[in-house]
């Protein structure tokens, strides 16, 4: 039986009717058309579905949509502002941290949540912070580099877009 709920995603409100068992991932992808969050396992083991809920990384495949009411949900689609990539996104691009891209949105959001809690992590802490997000393409090397490049910029990640990176 469907029930009406209101979700706030990337700063916009959405009124949708969903069955109580629908996951946040399903509703984001199927009802709202936000397909940046991916379903890699549907078991909470891969992290590809990671989104932010009130700034904290959550596995949207294990989160019920009805439980997300009243939260500020951020998906990867909500990171770039005014046509400019978020510094983490830009560093992922510049440092070669993206190959197939299927883990990327979850990876970026996990990194963002981690930096929100601990803005100056060591590389080892970054690895721990993204250890719930699996990647088969990169060996994580360039992902850690991209996050560390963001850390080392030492700027306010919410406001300052930048080029970043050494490659090009």
């Amino acid at each position, binding site marked *: 039986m469907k029930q009406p709920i209101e979700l706030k995603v990337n700063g916009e409100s959405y009124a949708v009717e969903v069955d109580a068992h629908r996951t946040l991932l399903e509703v984001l992808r199927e009802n709202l058309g936000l397909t940046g969050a991916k379903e890699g396992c*549907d078991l909470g083991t891969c992290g590809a579905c990671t989104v932010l809920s009130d700034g904290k990384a959550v596995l949207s495949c294990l989160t019920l949509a009805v439980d997300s009411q009243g939260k500020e949900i951020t998906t990867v*689609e909500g990171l*770039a502002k005014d046509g400019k*990539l978020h510094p983490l996104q830009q560093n992922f691009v510049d440092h*070669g941290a993206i190959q197939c891209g299927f883990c990327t*949105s979850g990876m970026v959001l996990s990194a963002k949540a981690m930096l929100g809690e601990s803005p100056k992590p060591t590389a080892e802490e970054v690895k721990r912070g993204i250890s719930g*997000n699996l990647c*088969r393409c990169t060996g994580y090397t360039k992902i850690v580099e991209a996050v560390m490049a963001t850390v080392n910029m030492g700027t306010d990640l919410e406001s300052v877009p930048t080029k970043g990176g050494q490659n*090009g």
Partner: protein
Amino acid sequence: MDKYSVIGKSVPRVDAVVKVTGDAKYTADLVLPGMLYGKILRSPYPHAKILNIDASKAKKLPGVRAVIAGQDTPGKKFGRYQDDQLVFVDQLALAIDKVRYIGDEVAAVAAIDEDTAQEALDLIEVEYEELPAVFDPEEAMKPGAPRLHDHAENNVGLVLLRHFGDVEKGFAESDRIFEDRFVTQGVTHLALEPHAALANFDAAGKLTVWSSNQNPFPDRAQLARALDMPEGRIRVIKPHVGGGFGGKVEPLSHDVCAALLAMKTGRPVMIVLTREEVFTATRQRHPMIVNLKTGVRMDGTVMAKECKIIADTGAYYGVGPNVLATHGTILTLLYRTPNVKYEGILVFTNKQVCGAQRGYGNPQIRFADEQQMDMIAEALAMDPEELRIRNAVQSGDITPIRSRIVSCGYTECLQKAMAKTGCVQKRGNLPANQGIGIAGTGMSSGSKTYNKPFSSGALVELQEDGSVSLFSGGSDIGQGLNTIMAQITAELLGIGLEEIKITVADTEFTPWDQGTSSSRATMFAGNAAKLAAADARRQLFEAAAEILEASPEDLDARERKIFVKGSPGKAIPFVDAVRAYRAKRKQPLLGRGYYDPDVERPSPDGEGNISPSYSFGCDVAEVQVDTETGQVKVSKITAAHDCGFALNPMAVEGQIEGALHMGIGYALTEEFFREEGLTLNPTFLNHRMLTALDMPEIESLIVEPVDPNGPFGAKEIGEGTLVPTAAAIANAVYDAIGVRIKELPLTPERVLTALEKKGGRE
């Protein structure tokens, strides 16, 4: 000024922005109006006859639009083979009389949503008669073992015999002979994107399939076979693909079922496999038993190798026959070996099918050969590196099976890795329970084992606004092919990467390409793009020469200008030259490229140069072993790889780092656990995929012997690096604790057992 403007630079990939913003669409992200959702019913038994299928209840469930079983399909088998190999074509979209593994496809449903489709599966009543099953390949070969296929006596699907030189003579001339048995496990690809297919069948009888695959053109041919339809009525499109690693080389049942359900319902049908299905009913790397015998002189010269392999292919052939055939190349690729004998046996068991996986049989062979090389070196009191260098193939060599080694940086890779790691000095001298090990690799840049034609095509159109459209059938599955092709095209036309617009991997709009497999993409699709861009450049220079009053061969292109070499002031903008060409010749400016090198499918005796070039390399692993728990921790891997000219060093490093993730997992953690054919660990967690915390420090050493056949001298990089990882780690473990483990993965249990055998824990 740099020799090149765009190539040889670590530029970000052209699809990075759409991927990092979530814009990039993968197959499962697509939606068509009226789309239905498909699900597949699979066999719960490892081996059984199908007596009856009753779908009447499922069909009555509200929301169900179609249910199909074997008798509703054309019943045509498909598989990735040419017409002279039809004996190996043994896959049905849905089983007709018999199922051969837990997961074999039995029926398929299309419904208005996934939940309804899933519910409908539970309502299909299938009556089975269980048959005895066999899971171990050596058991399967014994007389009286349960038989999977009528055509395969003792479950032997294929025996390949290869003999070059005279091994008996070679062994007779050897001072020492070494004989060992190695065992490797099955692992799955662990691509993050589950397999998916969306099919649409229009009123005019045209089928379109969007599929997470590695090669749309060969897939189209297989779909045509399975659907009994002309290829021309089928269009296959590859959207963004979330990793393949060989696991998406073959079309699978879900591709065919999506098409059949779309044809039956007249509605688009999407099938996305669950992660459990990907684990249990797609492909895996062949588990192998490798018996290897090598004869050497006291000075270390390899005189003969004899290799007998038992490869467990699971319930069907898959690409097993080709993996087996490729071994002939692999076995003789790295070390000069005058006398070689190879026997490969492909065995059926009641397990999921084996297929292509990054390395294609190579990791199994190298796990054996590279450990045995270390054992030989120790017995001869030589450094393992010295033994390898003494026997290493060199540029200009032609191997016994006639592989032509046109460029070879193997020795250089070994020397660079030795210098960087100090492995020779460290070996035997590290603190207790620490060790260092080396192992080598060789890999084709595309291997023509069966596909025909084995070519790639590309088209380049120079447009009125000065931008350039590149059309390629090549498949970027995440490795970065689109970026490489764009870099090549931009370099030749003297324009920026951002001015290249790419249309790829669509059988309707892009030229034929055999796809991404056997590390062929840069060599083949890259060369096709290069030829197409060069063809466009030639025509453009003819038009520019008329304006500049110069000879076309005196022109060059750079920074959006066509100029006379040596007189950069004598120039016209690129866009003006394009417009002049179109205005004067009244034709679109099209460049055509087709790369179809002179390579051979192996003869029945196994001879033939299957690739335009081969790459080489080595891994040096540094490990620490906990002798209490048996856990092996890899602290660092240094990978030297001869990739030819690195078109994009950042992308090359990315390939090396990703390959090592796969190689270390293969060495230490990844494996299937099964009981009576039932997979017990169909999850990332329990298949033990490495996390960021599990990865060691990685150092990539790019060795660049410029290859005469590669585009600007580039060759393979995607597969070779993971090939030696397991052996390098096993050799390092031996250095650390003095036990030789010949079975993968090197789990704590195996390490502790080996230590106990050696004489108790230390």
